[in-house]
């Protein structure tokens, strides 16, 4: 049985298939079937010939095996410096080997490659900064994931996640109507406190188009309310779109390139339709990378840019605080030791380190901020990036990987961790639970909301 019912080379394209796959609790049957899944070696090799860019080819061949990348990798460090966890080794023994063998690899090899690609690398790109040749294993693992996905060797949750984007253009089964309705619900729920609060849907030519993470809609819509309230008190002209509202991309984690393109195209479509001055995305790191940094290439946009200028939530927040659109009550600034998790995806890979520091300067009482060590672009991955958080099969490895962040946080002595990224937020939540770390953690929105000054004219009249 080379192709299984659940585990096969076909992407999930319909709601029925999605439900069926979800019905296979924990992916038990899925992984069972994977053991018999055949490798289409011809397809593998022809794909490599067609899609492997010269940069990756060069990287694979120029690696000097000097090992300078070893200590840069947090997973290497938490696994007792196991030589098999050296970034160069990890990629050479997988992608490098597939290329050397011209795609002639077997099922057992693909299983090993899958574990390496999803449980030994979070695509945090830290190693790339330390290699003297600038060789970036994160980028190469991203590419390898695409090859593995095409062959059906992909963790169960990742296949589901990519399927969600294909079916719903969102990472969870949230239909467009539910998105709009939930946003409206949240606004209604807060109209007593903020009487003229509203959520403009599909407004053309607004200053800001706001995009979100489907999990906010599904599980903590308070986040939508907070975003609406902060735009409201900042006096912004903003809107959301009834289609193409999802910023994230589990398809990117899964290596499903086709779904990556489908997803960002839907968001770009909204930008083109509504012509906002710019797009602001929620507090999510990988989503920013997907839609703002990599998306334009997936979508084949020649200029490498999104249709309208697109910024991360922290950029909007820093600007709103800087220009005085949002004012912080100095009495309410954070007065406990506090640190911030620098997300790989928009700090290391998109240079926003000073933006978050600027926000801190407005919201934390001087003397209370404690940077992690290392920090900014040198910060370690939260431990759950690249899809690691969501994969049941690799839970044990993920929990091990969380130790780096745990120790970094503990060393700061902070009581509160700012985590303006969904993945980091999840990882920190899990490490607090797993290792019983006595700290609190939070997105920025709820904290800002507690300390922002509400202009008199927006307050309810009792």
């Amino acid at each position, binding site marked *: 049985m080379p192709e299984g019912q659940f585990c096969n080379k076909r992407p999930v394209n319909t709601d029925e298939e999605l439900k069926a796959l*979800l*019905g296979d*609790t*924990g992916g038990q049957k899925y992984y069972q079937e994977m053991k018999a899944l055949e490798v289409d070696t011809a397809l593998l090799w022809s794909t490599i010939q067609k899609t492997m860019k010269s940069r990756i080819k060069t990287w694979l061949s120029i690696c000097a095996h000097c090992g300078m990348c070893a200590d840069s990798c947090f997973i290497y460090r938490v696994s007792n410096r196991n030589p098999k966890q050296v970034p160069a080794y990890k990629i050479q023994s997988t992608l490098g080997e597939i290329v050397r063998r011209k795609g002639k690899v077997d099922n057992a090899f693909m299983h090993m490659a899958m574990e390496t690609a999803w449980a030994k690398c979070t695509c945090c790109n830290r190693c790339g900064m330390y290699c003297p040749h600038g060789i970036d294993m994160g980028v190469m693992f991203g590419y390898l994931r695409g090859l593995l996905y095409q062959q059906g060797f992909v963790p169960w*949750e990742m296949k*589901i*996640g990519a399927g969600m984007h294909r079916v719903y253009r969102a*990472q*969870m089964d949230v239909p467009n109507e539910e998105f709009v309705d939930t946003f409206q*619900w949240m606004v209604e*729920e807060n109209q*007593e*406190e903020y009487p003229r609060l509203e959520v403009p849907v599909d407004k053309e030519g607004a200053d800001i188009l706001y995009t979100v993470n489907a*999990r906010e809609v*599904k*599980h*903590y*819509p*308070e986040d939508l309310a907070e975003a609406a309230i902060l735009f409201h008190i900042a006096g912004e002209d903003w809107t959301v779109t009834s289609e193409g509202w999802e910023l994230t991309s*589990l398809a990117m984690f899964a290596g499903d390139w086709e779904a990556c393109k489908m997803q960002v195209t839907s968001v770009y479509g909204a930008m083109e339709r509504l012509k906002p001055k710019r797009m602001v995305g929620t507090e999510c790191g990988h989503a920013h990378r997907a839609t703002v940094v990599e998306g334009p290439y997936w979508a084949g946009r020649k200029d490498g840019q999104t249709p309208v200028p697109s910024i991360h939530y922290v950029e909007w927040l820093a600007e709103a605080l800087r220009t005085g659109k949002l004012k912080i009550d100095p009495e309410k600034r954070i007065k406990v030791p506090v640190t911030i998790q620098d997300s790989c995806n928009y700090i290391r890979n998109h240079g926003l380190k000073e933006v978050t520091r600027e926000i801190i300067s407005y919201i934390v009482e001087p003397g209370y901020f404690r940077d992690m060590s290392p920090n900014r672009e040198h910060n370690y991955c939260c431990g*759950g990036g690249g899809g690691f*958080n*969501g*994969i*049941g099969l690799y*839970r044990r490895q993920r929990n091990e990987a969380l130790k780096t962040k745990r120790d970094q946080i503990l060393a700061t002595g902070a009581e509160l961790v700012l985590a303006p990224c*969904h*993945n980091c937020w*999840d990882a920190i*939540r*899990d490490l*607090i*639970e797993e290792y019983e770390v006595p700290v*609190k953690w939070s997105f920025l929105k*709820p904290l800002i*909301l*507690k300390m922002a000054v509400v202009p008199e004219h927006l307050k309810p009249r*009792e």
Partner: protein
Amino acid sequence: MFKNILFATSATEASDHAARVAFNLARQYGAAVTVFHVLGVPTRGYSQVVVDVRTKESVQVDDEYRAWVVEEIKNQHGGEMKKAPQAVVEVCVGYPHREILRAVREKKPDLVVMGGTTGGDSVYKKALAGTTLQKVAKAAPCPVLAVAREAASFWGGFSSIVFGADFSKASDAAFDFSLKMAREAQCELHLFHAVDVGATLMGKIMDQDTIEGQIRESLNRIRGRYVAKMGDFKNYTMEVWEGIPSIEIVKFARERNADLIVMAHHARQADLEDSPMGSTMEQVIMRAGCPVISVNRLPKA
């Protein structure tokens, strides 16, 4: 009065007293009941793993698991459920307060019944400020009834209702509801207010003259704001005491043999976290010898 009750249960003993109230009310008023349980928080990002609130174990939620939880609920509340044979049980995954509010929005019950705050929702407490009860009570469009103690269970009809007034807009809605209940049950209604001389004044000590002045003023406000709206309803008393409101109202309710306390609960979301002891309403629920209903808004026309 009540035709459609949503009973949000923790599916543990902590909700047993609330179950008794929910089903006694259902029998009394011939109401339909939905027994609603949020079985766990989705954890680990987009994984399918859920931490079950009762067992604290990480589980993969599928149809089989849901069916098992439904059975567990029927075991837990089986005795009470016999009083309303058509009651349906629903379970779902999510943050409890949010899913309860989502169900309220869909099913439009005229009353939500919940147990008191227990250690049981510690799984969520870490992530979110305030308790499930606070959040539901704050945002629900309909009255929310909470019962924490066995002594607070409701056994039959209503004979004495205490309305805890705080002169806010939300409190007006709570008053309207109290009056409607009292008219319907043809029972006594006690309008009560406590002048806060306690902790919230941060140590400022009021002299006796000021206190008495405030008591007089509060009585006038009760007359102007509430009594004026009562029309021909005469079976009422009004009283203003001084002290810590949550304690005074419980003492007063005992004195009047109240079988229901009605009050508004309208703390700002942002304030919830800053009151480690919970809101006045929660303090009342913890201590009261009868169910407490929180009402914050008039039913939508």
